[in-house]
Each structure stands twice: as structure tokens, then as C-alpha cells.
């Protein structure tokens, strides 16, 4: 077979041919089949969401100046990846100008690498090393594949940019609504429900459904995008909190006395009397746990898949009414009146950690989706952002004029605080950075004091429950533009939902695995490993893995006399002993060096210092 010519070689006739080939020849059938190609446009226009905040050719120049909502290219385009390598020797003979698989940018691939190569490994034997190499190669390959498939994340987050020097916080909802397309403009709405008091609200995990409950017993669930009401009831009791369970078909409502569970038609399914006087609800979707914080000071975990209470933990800190979950590791954060925030797992009877955050009581806690930052607000009118990666130190602190009563993080790390009847939103620089509290990103005034806040997942929408009802406001760039169709698909059908439910139940994570480091499962239990080793040594009477004692090799020519053997043995022993002594000395030195002050030299005048 003739190899295809390289483009670099200059073979004039060929070049000509190539160029003519490149020009699209007119096919004789083209005139006939024009309508068919038009009909073959792929599928219905899917993934329309989040496009709403794309820049539109504005009719109003004034608004354009005020708020330019546009997109930025996020991922460097990898052009012509679709050109398959088989075409190299195909029918046309044309050569792939970009042979081989498309290059993957290193930093994108790095994102998917899980192996921490910074940690040094002890010296390993050849066999072990080969296994390690295999593992590393696998990791690299999978990460590259993952990085390649990032191309499929077609949607880009929206954003709001003021003209130079212009404050985005001054842009009001009306402006945004005017600038965006009709579909997304429809996502801004107000529900005037003045009768049934302040409302709490909750979006389902797919972001498609909204449930809200008023203090005076009004409970409703609706498909908020289409505004189709699913159910609306009055439970004739004070509603403290409301939460969707794993799907939009089940609804947990914390009522004055007990916890009730309704389905999406408003039929009461369960009344859980072991969870009484619940103030706050949280649902851990991967563990199928409903965490309830009660006035009696108990944190109760209810496994909704089997209907059992997994753990009821006494927080010993009085009434609990501040709770949030860490989406990264499913740890529950409770805020207490003594200014501390405690972190809980159902496997432990005591808090995993306790952080002193405020001088007064803690009013609100929120954790961002990466589990890196925690925002707290207290009675001392301060809003703090803590680093949760081991240090638990405040990264930034601000005093708010009235203190924030409610806090929430969006999927992309925007922080919203409800202060009285005002909602303030702060944004960070990038996705992984904490929100900078210097300048609010957006502000909005509501018709009543805020009572509940939540960002809608996969929609640039913030839902606010207040005394006047519910407000859904547009916050460009709040949420993840790309959803996982297998995990939480906003457009899923009933059948899909049922299938997902089965799958999710099969993949349910046991409750006892909740701990601060969710990757702990990928670690060896060192303590029991050592214990086992010790037991084995005891059982056998010797250490099978211990280094064999030195045995001098027999030598020729009369040098293998007993005396010389003993001498050699002694030498090795002495050497080892010396090593040991040296090491211990070094350690001592280290200790001393650590203990030693690094400050100024003692001076003669020190003796007069009192």
C-alpha cells in the first residue's frame, strides 16, 4: 500500500490535488436532497438551561452598559479531535494533519489525579514497584481520559460584569430580567403569600422542584420552572422546616410536634414520633440519611431507605436550631449558643471537631460544595469564613450592620446572607476561592425579613423565603452549568427517576463511613494492622518479617576460624549499635534545637529584667 504523502514534502501535483480535494465539490445530488439535510438536525434543543444568561443583542443600550452578561471560553478548544486516525489510509488517501490523539493540557489532567505523589514512599522491592507503576499508569490514563471528556461540558457559567468602575451590586433584578431572554426572565418571580407567615423553602436535588412551608402550616410543592403545582396543603400546625428527600416524590416536614413525611400529592406517609420538636432538617443524599436537629438538643439521623433511626446524638448544648451539612463529606455542622460550631458524624457519640467561631451565639452556618470553606454568622454581627482543611481558622471576617440570620453557598461558591429584609451576595475570584467579602456581588431588598435561603442547583437562581412569601431571583454565575445526566438530571422522566432511585439505593454509602476525611476508606487501618502484626509475633514466637541476624560467610584458607567468625559478627553488631546511638543522638539534638529559643542572645543586663 502506498503511504500517504506528508504535507511537508513538496510534490507539486499532489499539492494541487489536495487543494482541489479540500474544496468542496458540488455533488450532483445536492439539489435534490437539500430538504433532507435540514430535517436531520440532531434532536430537540436540549440543555437550554443556563443559556438564558447569554448575551443578547440588546434593544436597550442603557442596560447593555450596565450589565453585560456574557460568556467566556473556559476550556481551550481542542480542534479537530473528531478527525479519526483511521482516515490516514482511508479511501480518500488524505492524511490526518493532526495525527494521534489530541493533546491534553497538563493542568486539566492534573485535576483528575488522585494519587498524592508528594508523600514519599519507603523503599520498595521490584515487585512492589511494578505494582505501583501499574497503578500510576492507570491513574494517568484515566485522568487523561477524564480530561478529554471535559470537552463534553459544553455549557459555561454565566456572569455579571459591570462597566469599568461600575458596581455590580447596583444592578437590580429588574435590569437583569430585562437583559436576559424570556425563558430565564420567567425564572424571576415573586409569590405573595402574606397570610401564612415566614416561609422556609427547599429545592430538590435536580433543581427542578421547589417545596416551601410557612410558619402557619402552609405546605406546597411545585415544579417551579413550569410553575405546575404538585400539592398544596395546610398541616394545621407550625412548620419549622421542610426538605425534599432523595427525590421530589417525598417530602419531610418538621412540624411543631413531630416529623411528618408527605408524598408529592400531599398525602401523609409517615409521622415519625421519635423525632419530636424538630427545628431543622438536612438530607444527606448519598447516605439516604435525614438529619434532624431538635429543640431537645438531639441530633437524630434517620435512614429513609429502611426507616430506621441510625443514631440519636445528644449535642449537650441546649436547643439546636442552626444546622447545615458539608456536601463534601456529609458531616453535619451545628451552631450553638456558646459561639461554637460542632461537626458531627453518626458513627461518633461526640463531635468530630468543635470550633469556637463567635463571641455570641451562632446564628447561621453554611458550607460550600467543595467542603473547603464554612461561613458563619453570629450574634456579634460578624460574618466569618473559615478554612475547613485542617486548620479551622478564619480566612476573612466582616462586621455586618445587622448580622446575618441566614447563609447559603451556591454550587460555584457564591455566598448569600440574609440580613433582615436584605439579601447580599458575595462572589469569589474563581471557583475554588472563598468569596471575598469586600464588595457584594448583588444585593436585593425583599418585602419582608428573610426566613430561608437556598440557591437552586443547576440554575442561576436564588430562592428566598420571607414573611411576604417566596422570591426567586436571578444570580448569574451562581450554579454549575453542566449537570450529570445520570446523577441529577433536571429533565428526567418518571421512568428515569425510578431507575436512578434503584441505582442510588444500590450505591448507598453506609452511615458509619461519614468522617472528616471522606477518602479515609482508601487508607489502611494502621492501628489494627500493627495490632495484628503484634499478635502474630506473639503467636509464632518470632517476627517472620524481621531482618535475619547477620551470619558470617565461611571463608577459605583458614580464615574461617571460630575466633574470626565471632570477630566478624562482633564488628557488624558494633556497627549497628553505633548507628542506633547516632540516630538517638541526632534525635536528641533535634529536640534540643526545637526547644532552644531562637530569640536574642542573653545579655548581661538580663539579670535586672523583672
Amino acid at each position, binding site marked *: 500500500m502506498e503511504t500517504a504523502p506528508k504535507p511537508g514534502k513538496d510534490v507539486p501535483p499532489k499539492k494541487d490535488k489536495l487543494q482541489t480535494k479540500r474544496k468542496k465539490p458540488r455533488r450532483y445530488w445536492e439539489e435534490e436532497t437539500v430538504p433532507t439535510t435540514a430535517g436531520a438536525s440532531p434532536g430537540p434543543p436540549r440543555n437550554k438551561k443556563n443559556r438564558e444568561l447569554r448575551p443578547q443583542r440588546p434593544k436597550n443600550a442603557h442596560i447593555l452598559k450596565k450589565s453585560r452578561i456574557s460568556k467566556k471560553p473556559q476550556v481551550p478548544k481542542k480542534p479537530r479531535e473528531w478527525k479519526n486516525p483511521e482516515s490516514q489510509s482511508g479511501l*480518500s488517501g488524505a492524511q490526518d494533519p493532526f495525527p494521534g490523539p489530541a493533546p491534553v493540557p497538563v493542568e486539566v489532567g492534573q485535576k483528575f489525579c488522585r494519587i498524592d505523589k508528594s508523600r514519599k514512599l*519507603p523503599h520498595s522491592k521490584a515487585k512492589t514497584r511494578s505494582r505501583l507503576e501499574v*497503578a500510576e499508569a492507570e*491513574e494517568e490514563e484515566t485522568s487523561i481520559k477524564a480530561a478529554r471528556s471535559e470537552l463534553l461540558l459544553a455549557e459555561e457559567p454565566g456572569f455579571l460584569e459591570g462597566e469599568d468602575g461600575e458596581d455590580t451590586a447596583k444592578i437590580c433584578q429588574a435590569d437583569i430580567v430585562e437583559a436576559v431572554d424570556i425563558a430565564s426572565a420567567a425564572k424571576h418571580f415573586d409569590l405573595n403569600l402574606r397570610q401564612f407567615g415566614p416561609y422556609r423553602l427547599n429545592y430538590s436535588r435536580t433543581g427542578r422542584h421547589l417545596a416551601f412551608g410557612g410558619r402557619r402550616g402552609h405546605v406546597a410543592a411545585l415544579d417551579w420552572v413550569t410553575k405546575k403545582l404538585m400539592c398544596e396543603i395546610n398541616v394545621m400546625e407550625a412548620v419549622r422546616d421542610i426538605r425534599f428527600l432523595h427525590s421530589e416524590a417525598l417530602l419531610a416536614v418538621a412540624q411543631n410536634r413531630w416529623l411528618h413525611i408527605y408524598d408529592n400529592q400531599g398525602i401523609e406517609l409517615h409521622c415519625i414520633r421519635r423525632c419530636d420538636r424538630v427545628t431543622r432538617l438536612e438530607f444527606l443524599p448519598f447516605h439516604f440519611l435525614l438529619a434532624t436537629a431538635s429543640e431537645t438538643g438531639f441530633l437524630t439521623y434517620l435512614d429513609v431507605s429502611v426507616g430506621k433511626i441510625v443514631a440519636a446524638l445528644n449535642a449537650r448544648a441546649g436547643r439546636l436550631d442552626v444546622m447545615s451539612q458539608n456536601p463534601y463529606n456529609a458531616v453535619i455542622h451545628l451552631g450553638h449558643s456558646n459561639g461554637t460550631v460542632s461537626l458531627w458524624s453518626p458513627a461518633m457519640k461526640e463531635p468530630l471537631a*468543635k470550633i469556637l467561631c463567635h463571641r455570641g451565639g451562632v446564628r447561621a452556618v453554611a458550607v460550600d460544595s467543595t467542603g473547603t470553606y464554612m461561613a458563619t454568622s453570629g450574634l456579634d454581627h460578624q460574618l466569618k469564613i473559615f478554612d475547613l482543611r485542617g486548620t479551622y481558622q*478564619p480566612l476573612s471576617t466582616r*462586621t455586618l450592620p445587622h448580622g446575618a440570620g441566614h447563609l447559603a453557598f451556591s454550587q460555584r461558591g457564591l455566598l448569600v446572607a440574609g440580613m433582615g429584609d436584605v439579601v447580599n451576595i458575595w462572589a469569589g475570584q474563581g471557583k475554588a476561592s472563598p468569596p471575598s467579602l469586600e464588595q457584594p456581588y448583588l444585593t436585593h431588598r425583599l418585602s419582608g425579613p428573610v426566613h430561608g435561603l437556598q440557591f437552586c442547583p443547576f440554575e442561576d437562581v436564588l430562592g428566598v423565603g420571607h414573611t411576604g412569601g417566596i422570591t426567586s431571583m436571578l444570580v448569574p454565575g451562581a450554579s454549575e452549568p453542566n449537570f450529570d445526566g445520570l446523577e441529577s438530571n433536571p429533565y428526567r422522566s418518571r421512568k428515569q427517576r425510578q431507575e436512578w432511585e434503584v441505582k442510588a439505593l444500590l450505591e448507598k454509602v453506609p452511615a458509619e463511613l461519614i468522617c472528616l476525611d471522606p477518602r479515609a*476508606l482508601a487508607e489502611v487501618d494502621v492501628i489494627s494492622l500493627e495490632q495484628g502484626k503484634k499478635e502474630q509475633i506473639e503467636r509464632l514466637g518470632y517476627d517472620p518479617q524481621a531482618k535475619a541476624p547477620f551470619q558470617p560467610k565461611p571463608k577459605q584458607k583458614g580464615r574461617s576460624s571460630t575466633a574470626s567468625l565471632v570477630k566478624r559478627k562482633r564488628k557488624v553488631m558494633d556497627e549497628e549499635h553505633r548507628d542506633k546511638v547516632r540516630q538517638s543522638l541526632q534525635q536528641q539534638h533535634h529536640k534540643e534545637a526545637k526547644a532552644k529559643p531562637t530569640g*536574642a542572645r542573653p545579655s548581661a543586663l538580663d539579670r535586672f529584667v523583672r
Partner: protein
Amino acid sequence: MTANRLAESLLALSQQEELADLPKDYLLSESEDEGDNDGERKHQKLLEAISSLDGKNRRKLAERSEASLKVSEFNVSSEGSGEKLVLADLLEPVKTSSSLATVKKQLSRVKSKKTVELPLNKEEIERIHREVAFNKTAQVLSKWDPVVLKNRQAEQLVFPLEKEEPAIAPIEHVLSGWKARTPLEQEIFNLLHKNKQPVTDPLLTPVEKASLRAMSLEEAKMRRAELQRARALQSYYEAKARREKKIKSKKYHKVVKKGKAKKALKEFEQLRKVNPAAALEELEKIEKARMMERMSLKHQNSGKWAKSKAIMAKYDLEARQAMQEQLSKNKELTQKLQVASESEEEEGGTEDVEELLVPDVVNEVQMNADGPNPWMLRSCTSDTKEAATQEDPEQLPELAAHEVSASGAEERPVAEEEILLREFEERQSLRKRSELNQDAEPASSQETKDSSSQEVLSELRALSQKLKEKHQSRKQKASSEGTIPQVQREEPAPEEEEPLLLQRPERVQTLEELEELGKEECFQNKELPRPVLEEQQSERTPNNRPDAPKEKKKKEQMIDLQNLLTTQSPSVKSLAVPTIEELEDEEERNHRQMIKEAFAGDDVIRDFLKEKREAVEASKPKDVDLTLPGWGEWGGVGLKPSAKKRRRFLIKAPEGPPRKDKNLPNVIISEKRNIHAAAHQVQVLPYPFTHHRQFERTIQTPIGSTWNTQRAFQKLTTPKVVTKPGHIIKPIKAEDVGYQSSSRSDLPVIQRNPKRITTRHNKEEKL
């Protein structure tokens, strides 16, 4: 040969004689004993001598060694008394007969056959057989080792092993077998055939291909000739070089070397004229060579050869010459180039050379200044200073003279010469005065000559000043070290905080810089009041003063916490202030006041610290107290066992690992182990791993489809062994892995399917 034959004949004769004599001898044994004795012995000796001529057939004639009185006929002095009786001898008749020769031969043959050794016992035989068999089989089986290893390491094994190569026919072949059936296809093919468009490789028509392949004959010939010529030239050159290399004549080599040196010199001269920069480079090279020479002991007459020559030199003129030659070579190599140029200068040499040299000198001085040796540095600077001071008086008249000469240079060349001479003298005197500092000297002496050299002088001065300044600054630093701590105490964010900035840009050199740094940091602090920063700083402070009592430390920690919580954080600029606040401003103030009052007594921090202390205490390993009160002493109510005893029986618990929240005053992290989660963790290390971290590394990547792409997931979860249902898995054969099953079947295997083998090879090549 003749001697041998003679001896044989003699022997035969003597034997006959003997035989003949024997009866006689016996007869006259007693009577003629004495008389014949001598003659007999003589005869015997003769016989011996004769028989000894022939080495082969020597017959040992025994000699009676002991005198015996009785000589009976039984006590015959027999010949060959020491020998065994040979069977053949019995057969031997008096006269040799040929008929018995065959029997004799047979007998000898029978005798020559050795006795058959005893057979080994059965076990031993079996053992040997087993050993051999084992070795053979091991050798045969060892060829499977790589296969086994490969299969063990393989990610996936597919059974049954033999698989047909999937026939991937190139699309052209498929196309050629394909017939156009529908009218549309026919039309397309018609079009293609009309234009003679090739179906298989559409880019090139056969004509084009042919034209491409062809290369004109002339061109090819020319190219070939060119190549040939190049090859021939190369071989000539190589041969010549080889020949020259083999020449042993010293003189020849000397001449060649000299010629080379001359040539190099010439080239250098030329280069200097044409391209001064390149010449400078050359000079540098020479300088480098000089340096190398100075460093090495190559021509110092210290080698083995030189020592041996030194012994000889006293007597041998040649040896002496050789040594001197070497020394001279050393001198030549170590000679400083400058000297030569100096002389050139004196002769009114070109100034550009001098300029070339001047920077060298400056460089040297700089190098000294930068160098680590402070002694050298000091002496150098002082030398330069001295030189400067020494020159000062001379400089003035000289300068004047210089001016004069500059004014009337053309008119009085003689005067200039005089000046030059004087300079030379001065230089000499200077050299006498300061012999040690040769490096700095020539520079300083030259400096007076013209403006360029003056510039050099100024540079040198600047350098020395800088050096001085450095010294001073160092001193200042030393003195300021005492003051720094005080500064620290006064300033809120002094030097100590620097590590917080993570990168320490440079060492603080002077006090001013230090102050500036402090200012900067203060500024930064003002810009961004960060509680973390402050906290760390305050954490740092106790470290600085360890002599402070521990209570103080604790206090500081508390203060620290307070700091943390009470930092004045800037209030947010909010466009929309909550309405309630605006409306009821006074009420709000009241409210705030109320809160303040409410929390006044509520010491959150103290409570928290107390809690933390309790947690720390609870998590500490407990000591075991084994004292028995009343054992060996009085016991009872109110009596405590003595301190000594308590100390003796107290088993101290080993100190556990440091707490995670040791340095985090505002956090309590539980140290309890999550046993429920631990039950899910791996508790035993699998085989090849010796450390848990190694194993952890292999399980860190998730393999589920939630975290991976579909393809990656499939690849990660491929089964180790794949079998085809309904197929018999036969044991592996040599053919399956490309071996020949045995030596006999070698050929047939290859002949049977040569294609497969070649394909395998191809595959390997590809890999």
C-alpha cells in the same frame, strides 16, 4: 638403532652362554668358588652393562647380596627374583617356538583386560538417573519461564489461547471485490473510470507514481560519483594521518610542533589585526592554559621520570638538558602574558592591547573582593590604598608632566620618551617596595599613564570604598542585632513576621532596609487586617521568649483567642441596609446594648478553653500507679505512701502522638478513632507490599463509573481471565506461544504456518 641391535644380539649371546654355563657352574661350585669369583663378577658386570644398553628388555640380574655359606641347588640366584611369575614364562620352552606365540598373545590379552568393576547399588543408580533427568527437564522447561512470567503479569488472559487473526482486509481490497449494482453506484463508478481515477489509491494515478519513482540517470550518476570521491578523499586522509602518527622520529615531531606553534602565532597576529575581539578570546585561552599549568604539577620536575633524571643529571648531560627543557617549558607556560605586553608598552606598544589587559586586572581585583577569604581581601584593599598613597606624591608631578606632554606631544617626542623611562624606573622601585602584592601592583603602576588608566584607578577606588562600606554595614548589623529585639518589642510587625509572607526576599542588610521592611509590613497590615496573621504572630511571640513562665504562655494563648474573636473587622459597605434598622435606629442601638449586657458575663472563651483542657486531659494516656499503701511502712487514714515509693511504682504512659489541634487554640478535634469506619478499611497488607503507604497508593484511584469515563471504567474493571463459553480450554502448547514443541518438530512447525510466525515477529517489532 645400531647400538640397540648390537645390544640385543649381545644379550642373546650371553643368555645362551649363561644357559650353557649353568650346569658347569653348578658342578664346580665349591671347588672353584674362590678362583672363579672374580671372573664371574666381572662377567656379570659386563652383562649388566650390556643389558643396560637396552632400556626395554633389560633383565634384572639379581645379585646375591649376602654371603651364604651354603649354596645349594635350591638356592639359586635366580634372575628376575623380584618379578612375578608370568604365565607365559611357564609355556616358554627352552627354545622359542613360533607355534606358541599365538597362545602367548591370547594369554597376554586376557591379562591386559581389567577386572569389571562392581556395579553401583540400585539406589545410587536411581539417584544419578533422577539427577540427570531433572537437569534435562529443567533445561527443557526453562524455556517456558518467560511465558509463565508474561502470563502472570498480563492484565488479561483470554482462553482458549489460539485465536484466529482477525482478517482486516484493506478497504481497497473490499472495494475491488465490490460490484456496482444500483444505478447511482454505477454512475459514480462510470465517472471515476472515465477520469481514470484509481480506486485503491486515489491520490496518484499510475503515471504519476511512475514519474515519481524515476530519477534521471545523469543525476544518479553524478550523485554516485560525488559520493565515491568523498569516500576516496576520506580514506586518503585517514591513511595519511595514520602514517604520520606512526612516525617515531623525535626530531620530526619537534619540527612539526614548532611549525604548528609558529603558525598559531602568525595566525594570532593576523587575527589581532583583523579581529581584535577574537584575538582577545585567544588570549583568554592562553591565560586559561597558564592557569591550568600553574595548578598542575606537570612540568615541575616532581614526577617519577623527573626524579630519576635528577639523579642522573649529575653525570649525564642529556638528562640535565631534558630537565631544563621541562623547567623552561613550565616557565614558558606560566609566564604571564601581561609582562610581554608591558614590554610592548614600554616600546610604545599599541594602546588597545593595554586596554585589553586593563579589564583583566580589574576583574581580578573584583574577584578578590567577592571571594570568601577576608584576609586576602583586606590585604588587597590595603595594598591598593598603600599604592595609591605612595603614588600620590609622585602622581602630581607626573600628571603635570603628562599634561605637558599632552600639550606638546608632537613637538617633543624626546621628552615623552624620557617620561616613559622615568615611569619604568618608578615601577621598578615600586616593585621592590611591595613584592608581595604583585597582582595589584602592575595595575596601580600603570594607572598613571593615561586617562583610561585613571578611570581604572577611580574604579578601583570605588571598589575599595564599597568594600569598606560593606565592612561598615556588617559592623552596623552586628551592632544592630542588639537593637533589633527592642525594635521588635516596640513595633507590632517586625522582622519576625516575615516568614508569614512565605518568601523571604533577601537578607536584611542594613538598619535602614530593616526599617523599611517593617514599615512595609505595617502598611500591609493596615491594608488587610487579618486575624490569622495576627494570631500567628502572637503565637510566635511566646517562642521568642521561652524563659517566660508557662502560665504566661497560657495567658497569651487566651489573649490570642480573644484577639481572634474580637478583631475589629471592617464593616461591610452595603448598598441596601436593612430597613428595620433604618426605621428603628434607636431601638437597634438599645438592642445592641442589650446583647452586650447579656454576653458580658458570658465568657465564651474561658469556657471553651476549659473544655479544651478537659478534652486534652481525657485523651492523654494515663499513668499506672502500682503503689501499695501500707506495704513496707505504716498505713492508715491520712497517711500517704512516701514520694520515693510513689515515684518508684509509677509506670509512666508513653507519650502519644501530638494532638491535631495542638496549635489551634480555637478548635477541639476529637482524637477518638471511628471504629465503625475502621471495620470497612483494609486491615491486612496484601502480598508484595511491605508498607501500608505503598498499598494505599494503589487503591487511591476510584474505579467506579461515577468517577471515570465509560471507557476508563471498562478498562479498569476488565476481568483477569476471559473464557469463551462452550470452548474447550486445552493446555498451553509450544506452538501457541511461538516455540517449537521439540527439536524433531522444528521444521514442520515452521513450514506448516510460516505466516503466523512472521506475523508474530511483526507484532513484536511494532511493539
